[in-house]
């Protein structure tokens, strides 16, 4: 007997909320996906080009129709150009997020950002030192001002290399230099990609792809890394914190406020406001027991990592949480926010607030946050949310929240290991832990919701492979119960023993999507400890349900950094078998890592296990034949 909606999602709260939305006659992302079928094959193969007005053009994959665009670009060029622009967009999103944080850091240094402060002074000093800034006997505000300035220079001016690239193993940096893909400036690489992909500029499909890798690196070791480090500096470096996930984190007897989007610049202020005693009193005066703040997507991940704030769901759940009828207000900033949310909220009492000057949405009220008004505006909005409590209609929260554990920054992982990566390395060497995999990325209605993440993760930990996760994948795995101490029973004997001894779950929640850089930093640390390059490590990356351009950038910077990465949904590259071959085979010779595409997580798990065992063998570690 099949549950209705079990085709769409493996999660119980997802199924129940989909049924409610059907009853409430509210359209969801899955219905819109269905209405789009069949999706255009030209575009899915990367063979359509809209770059210039001599077009639009398409190339016939069957060889009979046009084989070149009007300008003469063939399939290889068109596919490479399209992929390049996806990377540029993704890198721009991450890097702009980082830039906004740097601006807050500068505003904090100038005393112009009430409510914000330096959350981790040690980290401020450490990172400043990496940027060559003197820190001895200097006040944090001074250091912060200089650091913000130096970081902005990484964005804008002409350099030979981004500052934080120094964190990568020397061998890796030399490889990048040889290939000519050392990122020189964060905005620069994105700008150059837009230039190269203009009609009549870069028409070498390989050089386009190489620049794509450089652009991605300017994100991974540039914009995203700055985002994560500055977030830690401003709001504190995450420590292990208990938390909970799924729709059940919303409370029937409390004012529920949900934050959605990406930048902790907004969500941290909302957290402060939700904790303000006078607002809690106001909530009680209006008949609620208190105020619950819950997160969606990456900004939720940021709060979860630092404060254990619970998360209501990931990407495909964002419409569904509104249907609980229990959300007084949802505040969004930018990225991954579906423009349908306003229409969904209009069917319930939920107020939708957009907060970023860069991001407007239909059906939302715009209340712009800036460093100088954020604290006050957050309070005002929380008060308004409280006033909305009395307008609730039917409330439907059909599940209990699933407990989880978050906060595994690199610093915390090292701490959990006892102060150095030595125990982990020992376990890797002995084979108790075969390797480690970062399971990251979004949801996509092309893949059964959370099925890719959870199935892959389960198989990997069964195979004694440690899993670290971020983004929507991290929520999927938390909902599946992989992040409580008892979850070691899902793990193979080796992983179970190691995690049991350390008191950590077999799946470590490392944060939001910009926090994928934490995985890079960890990989770099392991590589240095072993005296090898990242591409020699028995590790891999996986994005089983990706959808966004940001994910393309992340995948590209993982691979460029030496981490073989398996994608679930097929990217738009099948129009050029040359491009496919380069990305899935050729990059091995250039970078020691490749992409693979495998929608079935069971097969992806086998692929990854095989890769890890091969890496082990090459390192002279005990390995098995897969």
């Amino acid at each position, binding site marked *: 007997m*099949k549950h209705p909606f*079990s*085709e*769409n999602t493996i999660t119980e709260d997802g199924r129940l909320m989909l049924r409610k939305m059907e009853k409430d006659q509210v359209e969801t992302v899955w219905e819109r996906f269905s209405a789009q*079928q*069949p*999706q*255009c*094959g*030209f*575009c*899915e*193969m990367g063979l359509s080009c809209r770059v210039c007005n001599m077009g639009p053009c*398409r190339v*016939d*994959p*069957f*060889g*009979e*129709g*046009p084989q070149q665009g009007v300008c003469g670009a063939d*399939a290889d060029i068109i596919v490479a150009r399209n992929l390049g622009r996806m990377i540029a967009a993704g890198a721009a999103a991450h890097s702009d997020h980082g830039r906004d944080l740097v601006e807050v850091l500068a505003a904090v240094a100038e005393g112009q950002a009430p409510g914000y402060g330096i959350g981790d002074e040690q980290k401020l000093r450490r990172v400043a030192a990496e940027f060559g800034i003197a820190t001895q006997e200097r006040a944090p505000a001074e250091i912060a001002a200089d650091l913000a300035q130096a970081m902005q220079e990484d964005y804008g001016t002409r350099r030979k290399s981004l500052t934080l690239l120094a964190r990568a193993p020397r061998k890796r940096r030399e490889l990048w230099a040889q290939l000519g893909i050392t990122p020189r400036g964060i905005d620069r690489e994105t700008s150059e990609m837009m230039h190269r992909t203009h009609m009549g500029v870069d028409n070498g499909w390989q050089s386009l792809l190489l620049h794509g890798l450089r652009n991605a690196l300017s994100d991974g070791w540039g914009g995203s890394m700055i985002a994560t480090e500055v977030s830690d500096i401003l709001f504190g470096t995450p420590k292990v914190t208990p938390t909970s996930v799924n729709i059940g984190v919303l409370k029937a007897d409390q004012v529920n406020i949900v934050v959605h989007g990406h930048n902790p610049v907004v969500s941290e202020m909302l957290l402060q406001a939700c904790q303000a005693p006078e607002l809690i009193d106001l909530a009680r005066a209006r008949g609620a027991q208190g105020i619950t703040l819950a997160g969606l997507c990456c900004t939720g991940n940021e709060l979860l990592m630092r404060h254990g704030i619970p998360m209501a769901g990931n990407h495909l759940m964002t419409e569904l949480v509104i249907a609980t009828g229990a959300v007084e207000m949802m505040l969004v900033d930018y990225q991954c926010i579906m423009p349908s949310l306003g229409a969904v909220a209009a069917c319930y009492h939920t107020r939708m607030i957009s907060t970023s000057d860069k991001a407007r949405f239909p059906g939302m009220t715009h209340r712009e946050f800036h460093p100088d008004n954020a604290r006050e505006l957050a309070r005002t909005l929380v008060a308004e949310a409280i006033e909305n409590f009395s307008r609730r209609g039917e409330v439907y929260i059909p599940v209990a929240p699933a407990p989880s554990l978050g906060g595994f920054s690199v610093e915390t992982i090292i701490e959990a290991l006892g102060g150095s990566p030595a125990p982990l390395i020992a376990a890797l060497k002995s084979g108790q832990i075969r390797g480690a995999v970062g399971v990251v990325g979004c949801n996509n209605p*092309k*893949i*059964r919701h959370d*099925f*890719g993440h959870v199935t892959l993760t389960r198989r990997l930990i069964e195979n004694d492979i440690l899993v670290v996760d971020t983004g929507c994948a991290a929520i999927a795995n938390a909902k599946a119960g992989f992040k409580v101490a008892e979850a070691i029973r899902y793990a193979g004997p080796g992983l179970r023993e190691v995690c049991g001894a350390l008191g950590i779950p077999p799946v470590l929640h490392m944060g939001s999507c910009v926090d994928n850089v934490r995985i890079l930093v960890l990989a770099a640390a392991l590589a240095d400890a072993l005296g090898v390059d990242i591409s020699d490590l028995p590790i891999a990356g996986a994005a089983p349900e990706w959808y966004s351009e940001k994910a393309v950038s992340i995948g590209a910077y993982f691979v460029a950094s030496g981490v073989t990465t398996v994608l*679930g*949904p*097929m990217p738009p590259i*099948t*129009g*050029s*078998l040359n491009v*496919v071959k380069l990305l899935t085979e050729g990059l091995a010779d250039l970078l020691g890592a490749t992409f693979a*595409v495998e*929608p*079935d*997580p069971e097969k992806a798990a086998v692929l990854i296990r095989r890769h890890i065992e091969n890496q082990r063998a090459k390192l002279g570690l005990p390995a098995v034949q897969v």
Partner: protein
Amino acid sequence: MKRVVVHPERCVGCMQCMLACATAHSQSGVLFTAVRESPQPRPRVHVGVGLYGEGFPNRCRHCDPAPCQLACLPGAISRDSGTGTVLIDPERCINCASCAMACPFGVIRYHPEHHAPLGKTVAVKCDNCLARLRQGRIPACVEACKTGALTFEEADAALKRQTDAVARSVSRTAEEAPPAPGFALLTAARKSQLALKNP
């Protein structure tokens, strides 16, 4: 005599045929103005989705005998003897949908049409682009299709090609590489994704 032949394995679902068909049956004949006409022209070919996300340009087969013609209550459906085209007379049509009940291919739609009396909803289906044929042009859907999923050829030639393909497929020595390995890769990925949805 040439006829439109459909090659389902070539359809990538781009729906260009639908746009071209609607435009060809508009008053202005130009896409940009056609979308603003009243009544808005509608396509007579319908790209439906297969079970694996494949596209398929579904159009009237101009059957002989035509079930729709037999089912039509007011006798609004007839056959053009020269081309064998089955045609619906919008003046006689009473919008009873008996033809939809009879058509085993689901190619008939009901909407106002600029050839019909003003505001009257009538049954509409492919007319083989007879007006274009008389001008020496080919059907609009064929002209639009860039992958060869819709061709305009002699039925004999199409049949021969298919027969040859079948012969090759059972021949031990003939090698058949997929005509578009990239498209085959995409299709395999789509199938895998869809299979995962059925627990």
